[in-house]
């Protein structure tokens, strides 16, 4: 047996040695890749409005509850086809944080400010707050809801600005 072989008894196998303990670990040869297709048909109004830089919520004509994220069913009144209403552009910053350690699929972005803002009609929205100087962010400050281009992907999505 060659010297090489002695160093790893598993050289013909997809086995790596744990760096710390030196124990053998099978390195999966079947990578699972999942990318979901999520139908939007019933709430397409939200996305067509988004193209026009409007953010919509739904409202139940019966109990007058507002829903954001928008949903077409009111579970309390058990009716569907709720009305669409526009969320006002001006809101109040409820809370925020700066995401430094990111999920794998967000690693390619700069650190981002995750924030929740409140609007009229009992609507609150979680999104990103775009701001040059992060030290100027204050809970309770006014924020604007806008639609802008997400790079590098190049699609449009809503976010907050001061």
């Amino acid at each position: 047996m060659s010297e090489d072989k002695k160093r790893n008894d598993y050289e013909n196998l997809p086995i790596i040695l744990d760096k710390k303990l030196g124990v053998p670990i099978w390195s999966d040869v079947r990578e699972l890749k999942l990318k979901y297709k999520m139908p939007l048909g019933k709430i397409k109004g939200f996305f067509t409005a988004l193209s026009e830089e409007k953010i919509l919520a739904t409202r139940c004509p019966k109990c007058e509850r507002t829903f954001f994220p928008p949903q077409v069913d009111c579970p309390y009144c058990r009716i569907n086809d709720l009305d669409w209403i526009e969320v006002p552009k001006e809101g109040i910053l409820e809370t925020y944080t700066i995401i430094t350690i990111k999920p794998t699929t967000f690693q390619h972005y700069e650190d981002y400010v995750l924030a929740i803002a409140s609007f009229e009609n009992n609507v609150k929205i979680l999104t990103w707050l775009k701001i040059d100087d992060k030290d100027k962010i204050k809970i309770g400050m006014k924020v604007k809801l806008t639609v802008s281009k997400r790079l590098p992907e190049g699609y449009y999505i809503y976010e907050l600005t001061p």
Partner: protein
Amino acid sequence: MRDVAILGIGHSKFGKRTDVNFLELGWEAIKEALEDSGVSQEKIDFVAVSNFGLWSSEPSPVAPLLEYAGLNPTEAIRVEAACASGSAAVKAAYMAVASGSADIALALGIEKMHESGTGDVVELLARIGNYFWEFENFGPTFVGYYALYANRYMHDFGAREEDLAKIAVKNHYYGFYNPKAQFRKKITLEDVMSSPYIAWPLKLYDCSPITDGSAAVILASEDIAKKYTDSPVWIKAIEGATATSNLSKRENFISIPSAIEAAKRAYKKAKIDLEKPYKYIDVAEVHDCFTIAEIIAYEDLGFAKRGEGFKLAREEQTYIGGSIPVNLSGGLKSKGHPIATTGVSMIVELTKQLLQRVEPERQAPINNGLALAHNVGGTGHYVFVSILSLEK
């Protein structure tokens, strides 16, 4: 233990449901069950949701479903037992009511498999078997697992592919009359026999499809049930059993030991004669994920002697009018098989059968007021057998 009644049922249309999102699909069944039972959300004390997921985006689906359906702050859990997850959800809801932990409980089964492509669904299902010792290096598929059964069964007992095909023909026949079914199309023996092999000897038409769908049942204790309905259906038994994850560790490839065990327990609990259960049961839904599975189910449940299940198919004894009608919903084969929904869907169907609320062409004669559901997860990794009854 408190007796547990079914108070209401709900069931979405099964199929490729790209017209709705995950939450809208869940609401379809919940809404129908609420309306059927007359119960409102705040009366529900416990929710059990079955959703295998992985092919759909929400990794912890209960919270968004409850939010959408106005069910917060109700206590809720997700349960999983592979393709028997639906029965596991009903069992959890049943235990909640039976224990007195809840007066009214909801079990929801939901699956939105078309959020992923076919290859990925095949991949995810195959991973359920046993990941490291079976999937990783040998890529069995679920059709493949059942093909191992089919081949050995045919070898040992002289059954032919045509016998298996007759199961598909029967189930499509009844599915044609079920408005909630994915495939509403009668098929011929030739249609099945000429379909391409997926895993020899099983062909495309031996297989249940990839399905989106939801189903819900609302359960209640006896005193509560009496307030809401004059026609409760009672859960006499819902008994589970398990078998090895590695198929190679099974005794044989002609029977499912956990199905035999679960049936034995359920019959005992419901006081049904183990020798001739089909004399007592008016109608059964059995887990025909593949045609061979229905034939083996006949034997595991005692509807036929070992090695003679295929004769029931050959002689058409499981149509209405035969020795015991099976899968009048169309079964997984024609109604569709949204993995974790299936067990709940079976309970919904049998409740309707017992109450004589299904379409006339597929309504079983209800003589004894007893119905049976047989729900298999994996290749018997988990099996639940349930007995419903018109009498307490």
